[in-house]
């Protein structure tokens, strides 16, 4: 349990830094892409900003539980284990969720695709941190 909590906090911090740093960088590099976000679909009064910024920690807790249960199935170098973990999460959770989102919400395909890439990036970051922390000491 303590391991899940530690993994969750560390991965949450890493996802927070990489995600929001990446988001701000992407906004400054590709501003025109983000014009579609000025849409009534997205909350605009700031009342849910806290939820938005807590997302990395909610995600990392879920991923830490997943890792704790199935980590023995990932083998090889810690980076590869982390990437495989992130891709499996994308296959079983992200793709179906993005599929239903695109089918039901008035958002563009390119926007949903970037969410998929963003989610894969986040889960790979978490996976690499979990795998790095779970390395066996070399003999």
């Amino acid at each position, binding site marked *: 349990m303590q391991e899940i909590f530690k993994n969750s906090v560390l991965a949450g911090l890493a996802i927070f830094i990489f995600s*929001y740093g990446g*988001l*701000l960088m992407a*906004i400054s590099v590709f*501003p*025109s892409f*983000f*014009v*579609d*976000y*000025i*849409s*009534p*679909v*997205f*909350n*605009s*009064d*700031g009342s849910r*900003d806290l939820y*938005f*910024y807590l997302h990395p920690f909610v995600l990392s807790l879920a991923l830490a539980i997943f890792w704790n249960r199935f980590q023995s199935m990932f083998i090889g170098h810690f980076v590869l284990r982390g990437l495989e973990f992130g891709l499996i999460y994308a296959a079983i959770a992200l793709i179906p969720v993005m599929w239903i989102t695109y089918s039901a919400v008035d958002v563009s395909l390119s926007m949903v695709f970037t969410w998929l890439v963003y989610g894969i990036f986040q889960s790979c970051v978490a996976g690499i941190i979990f795998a790095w922390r779970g390395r066996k000491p070399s003999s």
Partner: protein
Amino acid sequence: MVFVAKYLFLTFLFGWVDSTEFSKTNEMWIIKSSSSLEVDGSTNINNFSCKINSYKQTDTLYFSTKENEHKNVKVDGKLRINVSDFDCQHRIMTKDLQKTLQSEKHPQMIVKFINFAEMPTTIQSRSITTGDVEIELAGVKKSFLVQYSINKLNKNNIELLGFRKVNFSDFNLKPPSKLGGAIKVKNELLVEFKLQLQKYE
């Protein structure tokens, strides 16, 4: 009895004063349907311009002032603008602006003209003049001094180009902010209206 006599005397006196000293010069000008309105704003990622290209209706402005005086003109008349007519040339931004301006709850933006520095007939072409307007948006009324650029097309037709910077916060509106504040609409907007006026004779 004395009280009644005093009342009648004062009523007569003020009625007489009102009809002589305060007699007025009046003009009526029709706001043509070709009049337009534009709201320009910016975000941290782009600029936007939302327009109402055609007023789609006609309205009348009544200008009145004391006789032989062409300054300090009182104006009576309004522009009633359907917020849903704003077009930002970007479907999603148009929808967001309409949501921000609470178009469902307050479907009309009303520009009420209060006064004008000069009588329209005496205004020189290519001159600048000023006037107060009251803008009602999202159920909140706010008065502004507007600067007009005048283009006199002929004796009976003039074009008024009005400019005024306003803020979302002037109308108790919060500029939209998305993705936890990563994308922000700036508080300041530039309202530009082009009034095509035709003198009613």
